């Protein structure tokens, strides 16, 4: 496959960025999207040019590190998939592909396609954990949890914190991410003591980071590589409102 790539290049956070166009040739349809970028970078290095910076780690779709806006869709055209698990067979020979970083005030560009997602870490630090000392791991059946709650908590826990929800949202809102974290812990017995403190602290940190608000367009759910439901956002709103009315 031969492709034309329009890639966002930006020296650092303060520098002005621009799109550069590259041709890549003889790309195998079996390659992953990131392997295609590896090929481009090899060629750039061989020519003495600066390679394109992009983030990646596990390349198995489970770590949430890769983060590319491919042709206007976070993680590219394949539903429920991270960029690293997107394969070139999804494209056609001669295609033009636009690759951009996540765009949000709360996710400043560090270089090229790499953005700083520590805003998510700061939200987690506000309450995305259980601080009770639970001792040794209890017996699996010792704490009864209704099956629907266990399933829902597990679905929410699948969030890998990649930020595709923010990237897809027209308001750059982090609601789906925060809601997934709040729901994951808020549904389980171990998460109950801090349930309302958690939702208040995490939501307030989300607002402080400068993310936009949720306007219920649901593009976050459509973009989420783990297909996390906006049902979590409704639950977060409910918990947050309850916390506010009852004073945490």
């Amino acid at each position, binding site marked *: 496959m031969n492709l034309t790539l329009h890639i966002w290049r930006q020296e650092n956070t303060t520098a002005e960025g621009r799109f550069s166009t590259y041709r890549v040739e003889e790309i195998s349809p079996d390659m992953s999207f990131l392997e295609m970028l590896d090929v481009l970078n090899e060629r750039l290095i061989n020519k003495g040019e600066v390679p394109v910076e992009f983030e990646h780690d596990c390349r198995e779709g489970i770590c949430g590190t890769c983060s590319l806006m491919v042709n206007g869709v976070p993680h590219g055209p394949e539903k429920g998939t991270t960029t690293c698990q997107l394969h070139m067979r999804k494209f056609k020979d001669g295609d033009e592909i*636009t690759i*951009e970083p996540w765009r949000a005030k709360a996710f400043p560009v560090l270089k090229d396609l790499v953005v700083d997602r520590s805003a998510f870490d700061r939200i987690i630090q506000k309450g995305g954990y259980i601080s009770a000392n639970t001792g040794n791991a209890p017996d699996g059946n010792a704490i009864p949890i209704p099956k629907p709650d266990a399933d829902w908590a597990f679905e929410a826990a699948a969030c890998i914190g990649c930020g595709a929800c923010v990237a897809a949202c027209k308001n750059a809102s982090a609601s789906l991410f925060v809601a997934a974290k709040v729901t994951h812990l808020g549904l389980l017995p171990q998460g109950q003591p801090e349930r309302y403190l958690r939702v208040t602290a995490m*939501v307030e940190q989300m607002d402080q980071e400068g993310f936009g*608000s949720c*306007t*219920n367009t*649901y593009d976050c759910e459509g973009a989420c590589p783990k297909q996390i439901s906006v049902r979590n956002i*409704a639950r977060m709103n409910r918990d*947050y*409102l309850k916390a506010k009315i009852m004073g945490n």
Partner: protein
Amino acid sequence: MIGIFRSTILTKIAMALSGLIWIGFSIAHLSGHFLLFAGQEAYNAYGQGLKDLGPLLWLGRIIFIISFLLHSFSGILLLSRNKEARPVQYKAKKPIVSTPQSRMMALTGILLFTFMVYHLAHFTWGVVHAEYSHLTYTLSDGRAVHDVYTMVVAGYQNVFVCLAYVLFMLGFGMHLSHAIASVVQTLGFNHPMYNSLVKKVANGLSTIIILGYISIPASVMLGVLKLTGGH
């Protein structure tokens, strides 16, 4: 109270609740004006009946004005915050599952505001198309009341007024169909068992409301509602 507007979720909830009051208004307003089909006498009596409510009418008006201010203030606040949240736009950006109406709420909202001003100027303040605004009608009980029937029917005999009305109502329909489904989500109700029902109710109810409103100028155009010459 001011603290509410520091939180995006509480601001959105304020917007949802004030919007809910306006959804109620749009249903009540339509029901009232459907009396046009019951004839000049019934409609004019209804108009006078509203006026006779006196302080109660003003209580209603104040509730609607406060909801309107709250709704637009929250909307503008969230909009400006949301614009700030993405200072650099994408070159390529595709909607994934979002509907055009969900993305165009601010635009259809502004359209609705323009319509409201025009609608009030036409029928409440009587400053545009004013030639039929100040006629009097004598009810069967002998009371002389404002002939609102003639004002409305004559107003919609102008084809441009009708076309503008229909266009505004389509914008209103877009706003409403997202609003009804959205208010449910914002207030924290979302369950896989009821989501498709909520969507159906949102689309169905907004279609019924819009068709109801459009039926009034359409009936004037088709000659179902006619000027009677009064008493």
